[in-house]
């Protein structure tokens, strides 16, 4: 539960996204095969429930749009996205996570090594500012590598060796 409520304009935008998604769902459902060649009843058509859900989401999307307009969304039509630098933490985390999950895993590299590399890089990047200010960058890098190797090895051992779970 987030305490910070988004602005009415953000709600207007999200309402628009839901409405667009809902229209797409309804259109695809309408075009979906009704399986008449299988003598299927109209009440068992595969598109029936998704179509109804699409209509329900569309109604709620419209309600959200109306509510945000009443709350003054059109009088302050701007997104408080801010500078891209304000979001470097999320963007960096996203990039690191995607590189690990899509690039490193399944590339032939042993899982423990991929995990160790990812964890070490993540720790080093997000402790960089503090380490730099404290003048302990080299120590921080060393600790990050050791931490990564310990965690990568431990996860491999616990899952694959101890509990016989297949790792990616």
């Amino acid at each position, binding site marked *: *539960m*987030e305490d*910070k*409520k*988004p602005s009415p304009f*953000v*709600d207007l935008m999200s309402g628009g996204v839901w409405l667009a998604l809902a229209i797409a*769902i309804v259109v*695809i459902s309408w075009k*979906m*095969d009704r*399986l008449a060649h*299988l003598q*299927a*009843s109209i*009440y*068992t*058509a*595969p*598109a*029936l*429930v*998704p179509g109804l*859900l*699409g209509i329900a*989401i569309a109604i*709620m*999307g419209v309600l*959200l749009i109306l509510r945000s307009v009443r709350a003054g969304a059109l009088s302050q039509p701007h997104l408080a996205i801010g500078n891209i630098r304000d*979001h470097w*933490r*999320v963007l960096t*985390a*996203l990039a*690191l*996570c*995607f590189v*690990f*999950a*899509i690039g490193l*895993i*399944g590339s032939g590299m042993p899982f423990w090594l991929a995990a160790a590399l*990812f*964890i070490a890089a*993540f*720790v080093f990047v*997000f*402790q960089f500012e503090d380490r730099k200010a404290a003048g302990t960058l080299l120590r921080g890098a060393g600790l990050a590598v050791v*931490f990564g190797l310990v*965690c*990568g090895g431990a*996860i491999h051992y*616990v*899952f694959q060796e101890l*509990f*016989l*779970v*297949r*790792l*990616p």
Partner: protein
Amino acid sequence: MFDGLLLFGHSIATFATPTTIAYALGACLVGLIIGALPGLTATMGVALMTTLTIALPSNVALLILICTYVGAIYGGSRSAILLNIPGTPASAASCLDGYALARQGLAGRAMGIATSGSVLGTWIGMIGLALFTPVLGEMALKFGAYEFFWLALFGVVISGNLTGNDALKGWIAGFLGLFVAMIGQEGMYAYDRFTFGIHDLSGGISLIPALVGAFGFAEVLTVIKERPPKIIINAFDTVIPRIQDVTQYWRTIIRSGLIGTGIGIVPGVGEDVAAWSSYAAARRASKEKDKFGKGSVEGLMAAETGDNACVPGAVIPVLTLAVPGSAPAAVLLAAMLIHGVQPGPLIMVNNPQFVYDVVTMMLFASIGILIYGLTLTQLLVKILQVPQTMVMPVVFVLCTVGSFAIASRFFDIYVMLAFGVIGFIMRQLNYPMAPLVLGIVLGDLLDKNLRRGLTLSDGDLAPFFTRPISFVMFCLVLGTILMNIPAFTNAVARLWATATAPLRGKSSDA
């Protein structure tokens, strides 16, 4: 009643082996740590442990999952008391008085209250589980397609209404979850819906990867988004619970336990609502209302009893209706299906022993948290001091393992990533996650039963509204929606005032 006790005794005898006890204690510890660490929720903990225990026998695996669940809900109180940060959303209510007590130098006493409240809450819920499951199971046997349709809809509507602070957004999240469940082959004709030729989508969106993404990866991004504050832990006194705290507030404990269990039974509502409701009820009934929020023992006791009593409560609909009472219970339901246990209306007919096995698992979990509550404070304080920049990458690695290991499909890792990003954005926009998860779980139930019901009635909608249970559930759905429309609530208030005016006039005359 006597049969139940016999089955319970048999379960205890089966589970009381050194290996099982070791697994239970280990799982409680893992749960406690997961719950105590801000950013790691009970849902994610149970999802990750589902992966870890996939090769174990079903009873042992489910024992581990239940101990993790109970441990995590209890563990959340530690960071609430010591850091003023709820370890899990369920502990948010405990921050108010727990942290206030800690600031008065009574953190140890607060942790003792949390321990006694959590253990007693679990026991009350456990008794509820043993007593209500057979009753609800018998009632569930009367459910047909019409009732199951309304049950699925009611779950999403009530969850959307209660789990966030914006009902409309909660419902959107819930209906989105229902739609997600429509992706893949449907259950009647094996027809591919919304797969767009992607072969992997034919099997549908698996619950565990979606959950791990929405609760795990999204949480990693949420935590890392802000620079973490410096951790300052208050000094603490003895953590041994005082008997006086229990005897003095026994009414609060019983009331909160019953509220927690009752809220647990409501589909998809969960521990945070149970904690807040118990807290609010305790405040209303208290003789020391002014102490609430300033270090009230009663307030903390109510919140902790309520959230832990909700855990067994949330398992009741899982066992009897195959409908989860909370987000972690949704994972538990998925784990039961993975391990070949078939929960649902027939469980008391086909497998009554399993119900008492679950009661025993709750008992073991409560003993586990009692042991750790009395002994592990120093270790937990050390764990809480580990920087989140070190915890979060490990959590993400576990998210990838957790998504992959269930079916050994890389596609599930991509599902986790997608749900993580969607979950993160939705949380930033104030959309709750619990209805989304419940929607994914209930989508199939809603789809099959609406179509089955319409086929049985040949398109006649009347049975959806005229059968007694259907009618009650329809009224509940309608009432929940209408209660969120100000014009309706104002009209009801006016009507009520008009109707009771003569009575009020009489009483004032008297």
